[in-house]
């Protein structure tokens, strides 16, 4: 699986698939999901402790050596994102953070400007910042300059399972910023979406809802692992170009007597 190993945010990961831990009816299947996904890295959120967290905490189901990417979901401003990131880091599980700054409840669109502000502050404090963003080359450049470890453009709204609706914008990002890893995050609804993102040249993908809400999350995680690998292999193998007209697979000469021509 050497095509899948990856150095990012100061860590060596064995898979280009990062898995979210939200929306699981039964969190106890998470270790099996992570194993099926062949992933080392997962995202989590930060919330006030509730009474059920006393009995069962998500950290009970995440392997000790997993790479944790806490997100700043809930933050509406850069200031709130920075506060959440600092709290997350204080838990002592690493210095990765997914900056997620959202001010609309309907589409959960990331606020690119606040995301850049938070990224600058946190990168300066030594965090490995993975900003969730709306694909736009100026924002991506600003994030790279601010010290982000990668940029994470959305494919479609969080949890929508609608695939790469922003594919054209992501392609532009990949073309214009070849030096910063691009991790497509949000909206990936099926393994073929993940494969498509990897074929385009994305460095990795993040998937939550598509796996958590599948009929069989463990099997779906396995499907995604294969898709990410296939997409990456295809990208490295060099995809053939597309054409408007047909190009015959065999010569147009040497037909049998009486056939064609």
């Amino acid at each position, binding site marked *: 699986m050497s095509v899948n190993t990856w150095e990012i945010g100061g860590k060596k990961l064995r898979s280009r698939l990062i898995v979210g*831990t939200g929306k*699981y009816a039964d969190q106890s299947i998470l270790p099996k999901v992570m194993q099926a996904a062949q992933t080392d890295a997962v995202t989590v*959120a*930060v*919330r006030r402790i509730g009474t059920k967290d006393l009995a069962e905490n998500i950290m009970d189901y995440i392997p000790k050596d997993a790479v944790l990417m806490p997100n700043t979901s809930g933050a509406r401003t850069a200031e709130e994102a920075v506060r959440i990131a600092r*709290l*997350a880091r204080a838990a002592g599980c690493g210095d990765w953070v997914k900056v997620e700054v959202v001010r609309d409840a309907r589409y959960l669109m990331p606020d690119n400007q606040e995301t850049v502000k938070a990224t600058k502050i946190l990168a300066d404090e030594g965090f490995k910042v993975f900003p969730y963003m709306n694909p736009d080359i100026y924002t991506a450049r600003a994030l790279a300059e601010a010290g982000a470890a990668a940029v994470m453009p959305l494919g479609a709204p969080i949890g929508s399972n609608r695939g790469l609706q922003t594919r054209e914008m992501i392609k532009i990002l990949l073309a214009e910023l070849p030096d910063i890893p691009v991790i497509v995050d949000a909206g990936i609804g099926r393994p073929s979406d993940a494969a498509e993102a990897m074929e385009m040249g994305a460095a990795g993908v993040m998937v939550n809802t598509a796996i958590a809400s599948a009929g069989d999350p463990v099997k779906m995680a396995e499907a995604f692992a294969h898709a990410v690998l296939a997409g990456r292999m295809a990208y490295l193998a060099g995809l053939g170009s597309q054409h408007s007209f047909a190009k015959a697979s065999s010569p147009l000469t040497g037909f049998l007597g009486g056939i064609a021509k």
Partner: protein
Amino acid sequence: MRLLFFLVNMKEGVTITIFVNGERAEAKVGQNLENWLAQNGLAAKHIVVELNAEILSRKDWSRRILQQGDNLEIVTFVGGG
């Protein structure tokens, strides 16, 4: 008058009001944070504590005495994407 009030509150067993995750809670006068957390079943687990907007690392919990009106935010990791 203030001295009398102070002396009264120095008595053991007198409680103070603090705020924990937006709700009123009680602590004993002179109780330290670590003690309060343990009493409320919060000592273990992956929790992070912010006291009056300041993140307090675990090693400082036993040294920090809770005061009337202290505002605690106790957070942990939950599922997320």
